């Protein structure tokens, strides 16, 4: 499949990428291309200009900032999965990254691309919301609770670039995903974290956008055990329904995945 024609420019640095994006409102940033290129091939997107930001050193690497681990937007899923810092401080995040798609997708796909895209079935948004992370852009720092605003929608302005995500290091955390057997995207994925500020539970794949589960958070606050969430029934209203599964099926899966995530966090 051939995309519509476009111009291509590899940005030399972040400032150039920002200037190009500001001057070309219809342009798109190209990171790993693992979402954007399939979309362009299906002709669902036709940006006149692609601004390649994949190699920018300002977006790469990770650093410790007090109790937070700050990961650059250009880190690939494979890099996050293998990072000694991530594996030591937030092993649940390394584990999550190691189950995104397949090895070839993980070699190119990036943290920034996944978070900016906010696919309803993507894995990273669950970790960003579950760990109470902050999204650092070229303009500001946005808390996860405000960042994801709807299906494929975020707070990012059209000319704003996601630079990094700052993850507070949790006491314990885990992610349990029921992967779609064909695509590996999450049918339902639940991220649980026990943090200094309490328990957080975030679910992806189930609804039009990643969301928290306050009922489960309260139950786990009282007792951080799989049994504490086992009896919680999730309302099927507002759950995704498609050829892969009904709303009831997904609602049921949320409880099952939450139980597994808590068990994994305790293991």
């Amino acid at each position, binding site marked *: *499949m*051939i*995309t*519509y*024609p*476009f*111009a*291509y420019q*590899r940005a030399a640095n972040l400032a150039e990428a920002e200037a190009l994006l500001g001057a070309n409102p219809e342009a798109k940033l*190209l990171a790993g*291309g*693992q979402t954007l*290129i*399939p979309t362009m*091939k299906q002709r669902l997107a036709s940006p006149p200009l*692609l601004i*390649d930001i*994949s190699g920018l050193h300002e977006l790469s690497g990770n650093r410790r900032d007090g109790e937070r681990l700050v990961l650059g937007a250009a880190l690939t899923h*494979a890099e996050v999965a293998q990072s000694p810092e991530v594996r030591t401080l937030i092993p649940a995040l390394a584990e999550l990254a190691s189950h995104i*798609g*397949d*090895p*070839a*997708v993980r*070699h*190119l796909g990036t943290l920034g691309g996944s978070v900016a895209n906010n696919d309803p079935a993507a894995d990273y948004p669950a970790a960003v919301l579950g760990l109470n992370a902050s999204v650092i852009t070229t303009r500001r720092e946005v808390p996860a609770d405000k960042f994801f605003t709807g299906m494929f929608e975020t707070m990012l302005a059209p000319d704003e670039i996601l630079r990094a995500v700052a993850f507070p290091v949790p006491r314990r955390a885990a992610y349990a995903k029921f992967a779609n057997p*064909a*695509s*590996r995207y999450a049918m339902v994925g639940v991220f649980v974290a026990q943090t200094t500020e309490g328990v957080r539970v975030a679910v992806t794949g189930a609804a039009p956008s990643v969301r928290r589960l306050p009922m489960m958070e309260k139950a786990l606050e009282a007792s951080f055990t799989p049994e504490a969430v086992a009896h919680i029934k999730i309302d099927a209203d507002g759950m995704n329904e498609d050829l892969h599964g009904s709303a009831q099926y997904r609602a049921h899966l949320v409880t099952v995945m939450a139980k597994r995530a808590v068990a994994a966090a305790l293991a």
Partner: protein
Amino acid sequence: MTTVTMTVNGKTVSNEIEERTLLVHFLRDTLMLTGTHIGCDTSQCGACVVHVDGKAVKSCTMFAVQAHGRSVTTIEGLAEAGALHPVQAAFREHHGLQCGFCTPGMIMTAVDMIARGVAADRASIRRELEGNICRCTGYHNIVSAIEAAAKEMGA
């Protein structure tokens, strides 16, 4: 139109192409390296896997311009001086193919996983083959071939 320059199987190539040219089309249609296949064209099947700077990627999900200045290895670049690469030899030995359509991508994925040291056992090999689909073999002999090659290569 734009000019891309990259190293393909050790040789420098430079061509004028449309920006929207996918890497797989550049390899097959411009360079006539037709060993890299297009199975699905939707990023699912892995028939198009090549290495860019030593890493396995799906060449149907990358534009050729993204590989500008980089080094690409295709299935044609594996055999040295006419001798099959150990993974190619193992696929032949273990009947790791039937129609052969998926084989170039399977082999490029296998070489990558062995290089990363993650082909230790059959379960890991199957997990690493997540992005490669074969419609003939049932995978059993592909896994056997990769297992044998990994052993032989000391990985």
